[in-house]
């Protein structure tokens, strides 16, 4: 059973396998053996654990392992030069330093989370409305399937190209001497360059919408495609207007797509530090940025504690969201 023994490298085996299968094709014995009731040798292809083990290995080594280590290290101590195994909660105390004592004033961590949550909510609301509208157009208004596919591809292609470039692309448009300011001034709408266009909350939100609307749109399109058109006809026959159909018929039926899209957008915005950094001119605080800076200074344990808190916050939001939608459905 050499094939099974090579299981961890399932891939290479899969590549050499067919060659052997081909020689079996010309050998008349294989069929005869089956006919005579000789049990066929069990193939690697019948062994799910062997087949799944490379995936399991990668996930264990580069996802689950690192997460567990992050939790462990968040309880360690650190000096300027090294990190030391220990079990202390000082890192978490540092993360939430004076957070309760200073209330109602916000400590650094609460302020950072509040700022991140603000971006999260605005971006989520806009991408949801926009994603839903765009999906509606592709699914219900466009008749030809080939046009639908073409429009869908037009929206998704930018997703496969670099985020940095798509962010960078706003700079010549929004900058002090950028195209938008030039146009606004030549039209006499403003008399001097608008500074708030770039390196601001506005720029960050604009970039997020530019980058991630399709994370919301694609799952919604996916859900909408499955909706039976007759349900809409029935609603219309029953006298429902277009807004009633959209909000009381289509939206609830798109719930899985909306939830998946929302989870994507929320987790991305919560952990982001690159978009906030580039578009905010390195001036706006974000949770991800805090972690990145602490790593730069090799303060791994406190960075880990921050990462654990972030992960907890993200999971709580996801959990609350799925609950929220469930509750609404039951009402």
């Amino acid at each position, binding site marked *: 059973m050499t094939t099974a023994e090579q299981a961890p490298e399932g891939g290479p085996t899969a590549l050499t396998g067919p060659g052997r299968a081909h020689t079996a094709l010309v050998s008349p014995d294989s069929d005869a053996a089956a006919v005579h009731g000789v049990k066929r040798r069990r193939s690697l292809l019948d062994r799910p654990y062997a087949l799944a083990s490379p995936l399991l290995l990668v996930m264990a080594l580069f996802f689950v392992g690192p997460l567990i280590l*992050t939790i462990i290290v968040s309880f360690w101590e650190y000096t300027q030069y090294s990190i030391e195994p220990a079990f202390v909660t000082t890192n978490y105390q540092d993360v939430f330093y004076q957070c309760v004592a200073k209330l109602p004033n916000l400590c650094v961590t609460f302020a950072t989370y509040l700022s991140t949550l603000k971006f999260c909510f605005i971006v989520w609301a806009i991408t949801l409305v926009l994603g839903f509208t765009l999906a509606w157009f592709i699914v219900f208004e466009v008749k030809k399937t080939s046009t639908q596919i073409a429009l869908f591809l037009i929206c998704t292609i930018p997703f496969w190209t*670099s985020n940095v470039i798509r962010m960078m692309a706003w700079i010549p448009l929004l900058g002090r001497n950028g195209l938008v300011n030039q146009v606004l001034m030549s039209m006499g709408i403003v008399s001097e360059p608008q500074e708030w266009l770039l390196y601001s909350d506005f720029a960050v939100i604009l970039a997020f919408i530019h980058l991630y609307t399709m994370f919301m749109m694609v799952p919604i399109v996916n859900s909408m495609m499955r909706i039976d058109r007759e349900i809409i006809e029935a609603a219309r026959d029953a006298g429902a207007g277009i807004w009633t159909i959209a909000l009381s018929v289509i939206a609830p039926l798109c719930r899985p797509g909306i939830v998946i899209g929302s989870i994507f957008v929320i987790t991305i915005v919560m952990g982001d530090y690159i978009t906030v950094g580039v578009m905010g001119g390195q001036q706006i605080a974000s949770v991800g940025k805090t972690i990145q800076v602490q790593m730069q200074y090799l303060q791994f344990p406190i960075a880990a504690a921050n990462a654990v808190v972030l992960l907890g916050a993200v999971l709580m939001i996801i959990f609350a969201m799925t609950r929220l939608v469930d509750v609404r459905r039951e009402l």
Partner: protein
Amino acid sequence: MNERGRRYYVLAGIFTLFVLFLYGPMFAIFALSFQGPEGGLTFPMRGFSTHWFSELWKGVGVVDIWAAFGRSLRLGAVVSALTLVISLPAALAYRIGFRGATLLFYTVIASLIVPSIVVSLGIGLEFRLFDDWVKEFIVGHQTSTGLFSSALGAHLTWTLPFGLLILLAAFNRFDRRYEEAARDLGASPWQTLWLVILPIILPSLIGIGLFGFTLSWDELARTSQAIGGRNTLPLELRGLTQTVTTPAVYALGTVVTGVSLVVIGFSLATITLIGRARSRRGR
């Protein structure tokens, strides 16, 4: 919804505006990368030239852009191949079913939605602790982080979920009767895989392989803390946006995007061609 009423035109208008919003800034970058030699980072363009591409060719700043280009290219190729070679057997395992299949599935999904910075930090930590441990045994050991260890792993946590999900969807639509027919005719499992299953799911496989490449080619957040000393192209590019103040940085943006678009175009064209060939043969 049978007639093209006002709603159709309003929505078509919104869609068109969104597409302009999506592509407009990108075109600004492409246009400005052909800026004349005297031109700057903003409009108006002063002439039209390929000056900044030749500047780019000579190298920008202190970093070796072309070395980073090569690194990204090699890493992308390896990530793409591994994504295929790991997600295909895994998807086959899901067709058989096994204990813990659900847990593994949720782990893969979690890998997609846990914030990149957390994954990146974890991998960085893991390799750091591993290095500390190795140093006790091997004098002079520097680091195990690198392109084909930590960065490769970081990229796989991003590409494998896509690979698995695409294949599970493909197998969802798969008509098992083809396979049963092959088995009834005496085909071995390998023959069934090679001659029946793989040709049917070929478009999905091409998609996974080539999109695996572009995902890796453009990946930034997961690599940033997990790569060690040497950078990939997106990381260099991010650095350059803060230091380089000539349109050469736009020229680099155009080149990077060009590679992505060529790969996407190539994969979409191949998938379409396979589809056409099939419908012609009446499969």
